[in-house]
């Protein structure tokens, strides 16, 4: 069933195919926006106003349901004796009897509350997303206007660099913007899909896509081998795919390959029988330092490189 599918099996909830669809009853798959971040902030009401799902007995915003909310609404006695015992001191998430969810939905309400959607995330470094230039950028003119964060001494306990990397200009030595992404044949790091002969046969080589102008300036043709050297000095040996899919000054590498490191084939290091049909350089070898300021996900979309004939 599409999430969320509320309550016990006995409730026979159909699931929620479209989130936040207030034109239906919650019992029929309708929903409100979750009240997850309190009920007010800086004196501003965070709950919904003039918006509720069809058939809701509360014609306004409301917080998530708990034993206390039920008691205040006078709905506590809708619970059975067993449910009351299990629901005491609990909320809709922790009440294992499912009674709080059942009663909320019986009255047309979403167990997780009814709040406003928000675009401000005050727990993030940028409460509203703003543009920040990548650590390695070819647009030095944008660094001053859109600087990255300051270095952090402890980011999930790790010292993490931002501004000190961006301060240095790498764009003279590494003039080409490097980005990475997916291929339709492979998934993730590609180890499983490169081990599938039907898929591996379709993409047998790690490559870098270059615009004809850059290929010409580098002196390479489609199918030649090149070294792609990232701004931190690590380099990968890959094949050139010349296309106009990338702009002049931009190169693209897929991130599904692994098993080669800086030109060396490491197939012999795989346990016997565990090596995929196809190996190749990992795009990350030549990508950026740089971590998302919230999740610490690595920067895999924007860096600088230089490309030379291998």
């Amino acid at each position, binding site marked *: 069933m599409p999430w969320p599918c509320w309550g016990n099996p006995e409730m026979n909830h159909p699931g929620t195919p479209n989130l936040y669809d207030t034109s239906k009853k919650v019992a029929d798959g309708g929903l409100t926006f979750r009240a997850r971040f309190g009920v007010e902030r800086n004196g501003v009401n965070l709950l919904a106003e003039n918006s509720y799902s069809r058939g809701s007995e509360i014609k306004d915003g409301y917080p998530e349901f708990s034993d206390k909310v039920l008691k205040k609404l006078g709905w506590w006695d809708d619970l059975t004796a067993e449910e009351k015992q299990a629901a005491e001191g609990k909320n809709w998430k922790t009440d294992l009897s499912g009674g709080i969810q059942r009663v909320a939905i019986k009255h047309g309400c979403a167990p997780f509350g009814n709040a406003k959607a928000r675009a401000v995330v005050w727990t993030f470094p940028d409460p509203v997303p703003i543009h920040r230039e990548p650590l390695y950028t070819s647009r030095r003119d944008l660094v001053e206007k859109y600087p990255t964060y300051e270095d952090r001494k402890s980011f999930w306990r790790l010292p993490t660099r931002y501004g000190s990397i961006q301060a240095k200009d790498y764009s003279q030595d590494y003039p080409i913007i490097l980005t990475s992404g997916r291929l*339709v*044949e492979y998934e993730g790091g590609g180890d499983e899909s490169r081990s599938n*002969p*039907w*898929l591996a*046969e*379709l993409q047998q080589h790690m490559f870098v*896509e270059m615009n004809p102008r850059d290929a010409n300036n580098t002196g390479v043709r489609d199918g030649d081998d090149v070294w792609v050297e990232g701004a931190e000095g690590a380099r990968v040996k890959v094949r050139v795919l010349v*296309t*106009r*899919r*990338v702009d002049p000054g931009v190169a693209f590498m897929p991130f599904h390959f692994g098993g080669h490191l800086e030109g060396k084939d490491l197939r012999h290091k795989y346990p016997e029988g565990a090596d995929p049909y196809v190996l190749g350089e990992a795009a990350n070898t030549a990508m950026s330092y740089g971590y998302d300021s919230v999740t610490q996900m690595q920067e895999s979309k924007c860096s600088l490189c230089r490309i030379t004939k291998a």
Partner: protein
Amino acid sequence: MARMKFYCDAERCIECNGCVTACKNENEVPWGVNRRRVVTIKDGEPGERSLSVACMHCSDAPCAAVCPVDCFYTTNDGIVLHDKDICIGCGYCFYACPFGAPQFPSDAAFASRGKMDKCTFCAGGPQVTHSSEEYTKYGANRVAEGKLPLCAEMCATKALLAGDADVLADIYRKRVVNRGASVMNWGVQYKKAGIDG
């Protein structure tokens, strides 16, 4: 009698290679033998189009016309099949075929050539239907089960169609009419993309 045909709608094909993978899976086709493949023109440029190509099961098949041992035959459904026990792997059909459909395994009896292998429209071969011999030599026989080829059945965008030519023509005609009437005004988009000049 039906006349079975493939049709690939270039406006819908997204070059996902799902048809190629479905074919390999269903027929256990070895690495290097491609009964079906996706051809892309203007790759990475405006007007890029992809087409999934296999044996077209021609009404007057040139492969059959040039075969020195006459191993080709056409079924009652208009499907062009061949008998691998008669085939000598000479490769004449490969020269004659405008679509590059005949494939030659590199590691079988005839060394660098091997006996010819090609798309069977998932209709098996001359051996007893659903026998293990038929499956080993020719792959699945879905047509005998009343099913269409798996490539077309699995196509996510329904670009690749397989079936009775009359039905396919009807489906395609309706598509073209709907595109013309669309609020997207695809006719204009075609011109922008340089498709219909």
